[in-house]
């Protein structure tokens, strides 16, 4: 799988390259600034891009902007954005085109290598991987909303895992329940949210996130 990596901190960049290559990713180019990232994304059209939000020359949200701009050129270009902090605003901007293939994670999540690699694969496959902290913020904000206020703690847990981009099988394993029970939870969540049930995993997640972030 071909990866473009953007990270301005040399040590972190080397670490990420090592980590990705150890898991059979092919890092076709690693850049350290926004303009190079824009060029690399359009030039290589990678299977997935791993991008730090804050990059030179402005040291603001250069990486995020470059990623969003590239997705305008190449719709659905899978991008996993890494950051020292997460903002719902940015999650929303990334999800705005509703094409999937988007991830937004705290840099800390790299520590759990297996989970991080799973997230990269998920995004490359057109799925979503939202940081649990984004989900937590979204859910805490929506507590006052009627539809979500009615969720049971277990349903809420299932929704969180779902929004992180996990499959029903993974949710079942995490919650120590059967896949059938997960399906029951998700159906109940969807009916509460007024969303028609669908077979497609990623579409479901996107629909939930769109619902959560649009209102």
């Amino acid at each position, binding site marked *: 799988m071909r990866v473009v990596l953007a990270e301005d901190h040399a040590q972190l960049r080397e670490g990420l390259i090592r980590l990705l290559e150890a898991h059979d990713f092919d890092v076709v180019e690693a850049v350290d600034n926004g303009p190079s990232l824009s060029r690399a994304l359009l030039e290589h059209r990678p299977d997935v891009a791993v991008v730090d939000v804050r990059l030179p020359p402005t040291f603001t949200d250069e990486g995020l902007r470059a990623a969003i701009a590239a997705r305008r050129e190449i719709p659905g270009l899978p991008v996993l954005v890494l950051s020292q*902090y997460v*903002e719902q605003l940015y999650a929303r901007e990334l999800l705005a085109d509703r094409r999937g293939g988007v991830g937004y994670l705290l840099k800390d999540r790299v520590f759990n290598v297996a989970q991080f690699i799973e997230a990269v694969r998920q995004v490359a496959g057109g799925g979503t991987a939202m940081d649990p902290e984004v989900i937590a913020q979204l859910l805490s*904000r929506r507590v006052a909303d009627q539809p979500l206020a009615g969720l049971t703690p277990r349903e809420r847990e299932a929704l969180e895992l779902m929004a992180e981009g996990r499959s029903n099988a993974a949710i079942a394993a995490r919650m120590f329940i059967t896949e059938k029970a997960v399906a029951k939870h998700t159906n109940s969540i969807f009916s509460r949210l007024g969303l028609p049930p669908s077979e497609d995993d990623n579409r479901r997640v996107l629909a939930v996130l769109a619902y959560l972030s649009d209102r």
Partner: protein
Amino acid sequence: MLAKVWARVRRVGCALALTVYAALGLALLILSVVSLALIVVWVGLPLIMVCVPAQRALANQHRRLAGWLLGAPIRSAYLRVDERGLVARPVALVRAASTWRDLSWLLVNSSVGLALSIGAIVETVFDLLLFLPGSVLLTIDAHLIRGMLAPSERAELAKRVQDLTESRAETVDTQAAELRRIERDLHDGAQARLVSLGMSLGLAEERLEADPSQARQLLAEARAANSQALAELRDLVRGIHPPVLADRGLVGALQALVLATPLEVELVSELSGRLPAPVESAAYFAVAEALTNVIKHSTATRARIELSRPDARLLVHVSDDGLGGADPANGTGLRGIARRLSAFDGRLEVSSPTGGPTVLSME
């Protein structure tokens, strides 16, 4: 037509008020002179404490009326008197240049001013009844008041120096307190976590061969400590200067803040481009504090943030539909906002009748 009549009626009222005030002024003048004379037998000291504030209040009433008549507000620039002692305070009040200016104005106002205002009553009543062009005497009186009571450039500068000295001292205090808080947070938080991380790593290294499973557990602990240290640093950074503020400026950062607020918040902005960083930061934290207050105290269901830039100023309104009853004298939060703004000559006005709504205006 009706408006014109109403304006004339108001001028009659104004003349009446000026007459009553001038009469009150005469009484106050006599009391003040007596108090000054009585200072020698000490009795005058407490009297001064009453007379000088009364003079100032009366002068301010005149400034307000004359300002209304002339269509341009007349500022007042009394220096604050910080002395607190039973003797020191009256002495300082007597020594203030403004006290003698006010006294001489009282003298003029209780003679010429009184005559002018009585004349003005007659004149304005005739104006009203016979529809004569305008009341000259009232205007002359207003000019007299402005001439004597408008602060001199020197007085305004002195007042400004006093205000700036105070706000600078507050800013320095606030910053020192902030630095102490950051130091404490780092010491108790991230630093402590990094120490425990180092210990876990050291132990893991030692155990690696003898007991790999324990080493593995220690490494997991190290990772957890690392995550916690990062989380704490993140929170700290947010409190110092939110990254999204650096990325997106005031409006973007407020959008992000609104998204993270469990309230229906409407954000209306006329701002284009970026403001100076310290102003953005002060405005951001002021709004954040205001929203926190709304959530904590008001039981409001919706709030509204408005940003505008008339002239070169920045105006921020935060309003809600909650209980009201917010009082800057009571809340440390509101005082904190005022302090943050004072470093930029900014002001905070709070309108919060019991029952709501609450409106905070920051400039």
